[in-house]
């Protein structure tokens, strides 16, 4: 199965995803969308780890394990972030980043 798609394809996809995620995080003004951008970043890392493991180091599984753990940690992070976003909504009546600017400079 390996060899049909070269490794470079995966790396290009993951790098694109990473920078789309960073761009989205910096430009989007909605907290939930920012969280989604972070998920994009983390998933691009997952693609990297799995692709490297499958293509370059098939004899052991540390890359697969790492991506599994990233998925678990991302879920925990999203849970806490969404809880805080709900709290933000109750306090500010909005989840727009520009409204959440009580402290500046």
């Amino acid at each position, binding site marked *: 199965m390996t060899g049909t798609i070269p490794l470079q394809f995966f790396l290009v996809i993951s790098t694109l995803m*990473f920078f789309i995620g960073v761009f989205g*995080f910096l430009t989007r003004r909605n907290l939930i969308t920012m969280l989604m951008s972070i998920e994009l970043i983390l998933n691009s890392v997952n693609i990297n780890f799995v692709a*490297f493991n499958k293509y370059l180091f098939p004899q052991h599984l540390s890359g697969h394990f790492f991506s599994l753990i990233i998925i678990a940690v991302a879920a925990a992070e999203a849970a806490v972030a969404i809880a*805080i976003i709900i709290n933000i909504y109750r306090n500010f009546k909005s989840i727009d980043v520009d409204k959440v600017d009580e*402290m500046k400079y």
Partner: protein
Amino acid sequence: MSIYDFLTMRHELLLTLIAILVLIIDLNLKPSQKHYIIPIVQVLFLLHVVIGFLPGNEGVMFGGMYRSSALTIIMKNILNVGVLIILFQSVTWLKSPDNREKISEYFILLFSTLIGMYFMISSGDFLMFYLGLEIATIPMAALAAYTHHQTRSAEAGIKLILSSALSSGVLLFGLSFIYGTTGSLYFDQVAEVYSNSSLQILAFIFFFAGMAFKISLVPFHLWTADVYEGAPVNVTSYLSVISKGAASFILIIILFTVFHSIAYLWKDMIYLIAILTMTVGNLFAMRQKNMKRFLAFSSIAQAGFILLGILGGNVTGMTSVIYFVLVYIFSNLGAFGVVSAILAVTGKESMDDYDGLYATNPKLSLLMTLSMFSLAGIPPVAGFFGKFFLFTAAASAGYYWLVLIAVLNATISLYYYLLVVKAMFINKNETPIAYFKSDLPTRIGLLACVLGIFVLGFWSQIYEIISSLSFGIVNF
């Protein structure tokens, strides 16, 4: 592997046990008795600190993923002492009516982050390191948003979780390339094959950017001031002292053990970041009127000084970083302790409110002055020696210009630290903060800081103990 080998992990296991115990005890307390948990936690944690100091096993576990050495044990003990002081200082605030329902949450979240830091410091593998980092970060966001009906606290929480999630994403992207180019995640194996190919340098830069977020180095410091101001003050002191200390410990370990082969590359990078961090932190600290925000920028500037020790790259460098963090814990907790004591009783946190504090609360003012002197690095107190050793380390590696800039920055910092002293002793105020008497735990917490600031300044043995355990980069 026998069951006794698990004693190697005594810090982690014991603290996990305490966190679970707190949860169980809390379940069995009536709503009106919730505050009984505070002394129980204090005693349990005190035991934990004492057991941490006992001589114990060293060794490697789980195939090298977890490493415990005399050095990591002393790092954990340093963090333990800081957390113990914070536990005492936060009692007044925890007993306030707003927090009555959720006292034990504070302790459990605090201990979870501390467990994460233990694992992070003891990691021998990037997977363990990442897990520890996240265990340390995620509960921290919940802590920052602890007073959930306050808009500022919620804002601090979201700013912390989003920026730290982004930074771990960046860090992970770097780690994925480290894995891709070396084929391993273990520190030892990565270190053996790490060289200066372009992808490996890129991976290192991503990794360092992620770490710089956690220690809040310029230009990754933007979250710091907001989170420090918005979070409850005791959480802020935890964040600025313990969290930053743990991150600096692991950063110096990783830089010295894993990335020593490309040291000539990261030296230039850190050189520049050190100058930026010190200067920007100092310049912004000068114009702050809010005490928490002021201390936030001062802590950014202090992180810049830590980089000087890392640049030293030798045994003196590592020793001075650990010693500086130890001193910094006591001096910063002294300052935060005063801010927290005043905030808990009067609700005031602006620097103008501190005008004329000496007339009404002389003891608090003196402690604040002592902490400020220690942070600024004035000779008789411990802060001077902390900075002195850092400068020595950088100078021994030949960075004379950097040391000069650092000394200039230390002078600038003296200006704004003395602003606080001036406010307390000289400025006139029609309505100063009235005299109040803190409760016993707060006073113990403050007294511990005073003792620490003096003892560390005069008792040189501590430095020698740390020095005997530290290591530098061979062939730097």
